[in-house]
Structures are given as structure tokens and as C-alpha cells.
């Protein structure tokens, strides 16, 4: 018997970890959530133990930024395998529903699910249809899987979608652009100024825009296009693979990008925003590879290569200006 090893502390932690797991279960009830909050209030040690468990649990989610680990897990959870699973799963779900009193009845219910990444590192999420979304820092989307179609609304930021094969068409709405897709991997980004960038890694995607210059374009693998706020789709250019794949593991690659764009991207990963007020400076072309979140490295490069100096403002932001 190893009972002696179970210090009260360990038992409290065990209870706390069970709560952490319970609270994220689909069948967790409001009464259970209230019971949890009461349990916490019973003793400060309960809060300490739970805070440890919760912190661990959240830190583990930060490992999603670990590209190696993500690949390792994605290999085990390949969406393609799911092609055959839904029907089985539905059948199994129905059996369990009969036995288990409807715990799985939620399957197939076309509710909208929100995914928001408030952290400063990219995060991977598996959507209801088995598609894998990698949300860049600060990105948010809403996904709805119905019986006939799949719809994703990119609310802000950048996302890479590895679409699970399915007979249901997937439509992605990003600002004034709609992407139609059948089984593929692509990236889409809503920019602060209303432009939308689409890059296709594999498969095929049709881009349709709305607005005064509404148009349509069928994107080939390895191409990227930019949709202007007017709806105009700029001519496709070859996708920069280092740039498209870099952000997934914390490398921001720019090739003649306007400084404004560099700053907008960099700010996603940092608590201290960089600001460019001078319009002439904002359009300055910058090239280089920078570590996401390492503003100091970027500032050093800007000072050296582009004679740009930085000054801390009273509100905490760092303003960029030309060196006098």
C-alpha cells in the first residue's frame, strides 16, 4: 500500500486536477460549476492546488507553439483518416446516446463555435469537422458545421487551415472575400487596413470578392493573392514559402514588405506595441527574418539597416522615427 505517500497536499491536487478536467467536459453542468467555485472557497489550499493544476494545464497548451511537437501530434490526428469515421461515429454516437441518455446528442448540432487566440504564440485547434486550424497570435474565427456545408468566418488576424476532406463544401469568409475550398491547405489573413491575403500551400481554392471591383480567381498551389478593400484581386504572385511557413514556428520573414506591415505583424506577439506615425516611414520596404516577439532584435536591425530610431512614449508604445 502506498497510502503513506498521499500527503494531504497531493490529495488536494488530485481533486483540483479532476476539477480542471471536469470543467471542460461537454456534459459538465451548471450545478457542477457552482460546486467547483464553492469548493475553491472552502480553503485557501484548494485555490493554491487548483491554481497549480490550471497553470500547468495552460502551460501545456503553450506547447502548441512547438512546431516539432505539433507535427508529432498532427501525424497521429491526420484529418484524412476521419473521412471514414463520421458515419461510424454517428452510428456509435446514436448507440451511446440510447445507452448514455443523450450525452452525444450534441453531435451534428450546427452551433457556431468561437475560437480566439489571445496568447502571443500561434495555436492549433481542431474544428468540429476534423479540419486543423492554426491561429496566429491575436487571431479569431467562428466555425459552423452544418449538415450540408461548413462555414468559417475569419474575424481577425491570420489562420492556416488544413481542411479535412468531406463532401460538404467549406466556405471561408474574410472581410470582403469568400474562399471556396475542397480538401486543401491554405492561409488567409485579414489585415488592419481591410486587405485580405490568401496563400495556397496545396489543393485548390477559389477566391470571390465583393465590392465595386468584385471579382473571382482560382488560386493554384504555390500562389498567393491580395484582395483590396474595393474587391479588386491583385495579380497572383508566387507564394513565399519561408514567409508562409515561418510564422507557424515563430519566424517572421519579410521580403520588401512595407514597414507598416512588419510592425502590424510583430505587434501580435508582443505586449509593447510599435507605432509608425510618419506615412513616409510606413511605406519603407523592409526585408529580413525576425523572431516573433523579439522587438529588440527588430529595432536593432531597423537602426542598423534603415537608420530608424525608437522612442518610448508616455502610453508605453514605442514610436519609430527617422534618425536625425
Amino acid at each position, binding site marked *: 500500500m502506498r497510502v503513506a505517500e498521499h500527503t494531504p497536499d497531493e490529495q488536494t491536487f488530485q481533486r483540483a486536477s479532476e476539477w480542471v478536467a471536469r470543467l471542460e467536459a461537454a456534459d*459538465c453542468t451548471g450545478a457542477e460549476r457552482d460546486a467547483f467555485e464553492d469548493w475553491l472557497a472552502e480553503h485557501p489550499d484548494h485555490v493554491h492546488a487548483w*491554481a497549480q493544476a490550471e497553470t500547468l494545464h495552460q502551460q501545456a497548451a503553450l506547447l502548441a507553439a512547438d512546431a516539432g511537437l505539433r507535427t508529432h501530434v498532427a501525424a497521429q490526428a491526420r484529418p484524412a483518416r476521419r473521412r471514414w469515421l463520421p458515419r461510424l461515429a454517428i452510428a456509435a454516437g446514436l448507440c451511446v446516446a440510447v445507452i448514455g441518455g443523450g450525452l452525444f446528442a450534441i453531435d451534428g448540432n450546427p452551433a457556431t463555435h468561437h475560437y480566439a487566440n*489571445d496568447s502571443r504564440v500561434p495555436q492549433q485547434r481542431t474544428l468540429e469537422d476534423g479540419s486543423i486550424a492554426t491561429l496566429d497570435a491575436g487571431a479569431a474565427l467562428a466555425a459552423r458545421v452544418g449538415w450540408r456545408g461548413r462555414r468559417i468566418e475569419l474575424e481577425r488576424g491570420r489562420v492556416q487551415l488544413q481542411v479535412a476532406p468531406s463532401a460538404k463544401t467549406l466556405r471561408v469568409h474574410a472581410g470582403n472575400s469568400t474562399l471556396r475550398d475542397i480538401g486543401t491547405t491554405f492561409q488567409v489573413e485579414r489585415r488592419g487596413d481591410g486587405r485580405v491575403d490568401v496563400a495556397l500551400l496545396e489543393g485548390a481554392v477559389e477566391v470571390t470578392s465583393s465590392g465595386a471591383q468584385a471579382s473571382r480567381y482560382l488560386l493554384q498551389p504555390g500562389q498567393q493573392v491580395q484582395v483590396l478593400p474595393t474587391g479588386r484581386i491583385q495579380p497572383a504572385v508566387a507564394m513565399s514559402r519561408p514567409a508562409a511557413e515561418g510564422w507557424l514556428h515563430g519566424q517572421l520573414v519579410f521580403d520588401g514588405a512595407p514597414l507598416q506591415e512588419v510592425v502590424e505583424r510583430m505587434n501580435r506577439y508582443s505586449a509593447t506595441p510599435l507605432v509608425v506615425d510618419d506615412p513616409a516611414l510606413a511605406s519603407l520596404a523592409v526585408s529580413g527574418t525576425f523572431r516573433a516577439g523579439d522587438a529588440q532584435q527588430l529595432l536593432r536591425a531597423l537602426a542598423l539597416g534603415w537608420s530608424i530610431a525608437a522612442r518610448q512614449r508616455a502610453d508605453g508604445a514605442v514610436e519609430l522615427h527617422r534618425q536625425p
Partner: protein
Amino acid sequence: MSSPPPVIHRVSEPVPLPEAFAVFVRDEREPLCAFLRARGASAEDAEDIAQDCMERLIRYRAHGTGELRLLLYRIARNRLADRGRSLPARAHLPLLDDHAPDTPAGSTPGPLRQAESGQMLALLRQALFKLPERCRQVYLLNRVSGMSYTQIARHCGITANTVEKHIARALQGLRKELGPDSFRKDGET
């Protein structure tokens, strides 16, 4: 006039809230509202829920800022989950992902900043590979791929209840591996 026994009286008397707590509530309200809006709450609902959360937080007021922030966002997610159940499914009123993998790490900025330095993550990564295989697989599918319990259950051919048990066990295993002292500083202010 029925006065309560002196001992209880001392405890239940309206105590002025600690200064640190008041500052915390003031600073955290807006980020919390933004968090709620990002999860589908309207601006007005976000204000209401945030108010409710702050009131519920009062009973933990003696704790340090790090723990308060964790508590605040846990309470907020609980309220979102409550709401997801009680609201009718109307098209313009999105339901919330209440069996959500959607609990981004960034929702608790405080102690996690330290972890982002990388050292803790490296230790955590090592500890993960010492978990029993099934337990690790389930835990990584949840944490790294963001799969819900239902999705993992389907994927691994186990019940959602077993998924839940693996998750709790993974946390216990990780703590055993990392040692209870590795978090000490998080518990303090």
C-alpha cells in the same frame, strides 16, 4: 434585535476590500470584457457578465494577483458555459463552444509570462514524455491539437469520460515529475 454571536459577527461584518483587490478589479475589467466579446458576447452582455464575475471573485479577495487572475478567467468561462446552455439557439446569437478546447493560454496573462521564457516549457515537454503513452496521447490531442473530449473519444475509440480521467491523470503525473515546488512563485502575489 437578534445580534449574531460575536465570532461570526467579526467575520461577516462588511470589511473594506483590500486596496490591491480594488486595483485588480479596476485594471482587469476591460481586458475581461474584450475576452468575453471575443467569445461571442455582445458588448452589453460582456459588461453584465464581467460585473457578475467580479462579484463572485470577492470571496477569494485575499489571494494574490496571479491566482485572482486565474480565478477570474475560470469564473468567466464558467459563466459563458452557463449561458451557452440556457440560451436558445438563434442564428444571430452564436452559441458558445461550451465543450470547448477553446481556452487559450493567453487568457491568463500573469504567471504564464514566466513560462513563455521557455525554460518551464522545456521541462514540461520532458515531463510529458514520461507520462504513460495513452495518457500522453490524449493529453496532447487536447492541449496541442485543441481537440474536444468528444473529438478525442471518437479519435481514440474510448469514452469521453475516459478522456477526462486521462487529462486529470496527466496533470497529476506532470506535477509529480516537475515537483510541487516548481510553481511556488505563482501562488504568491
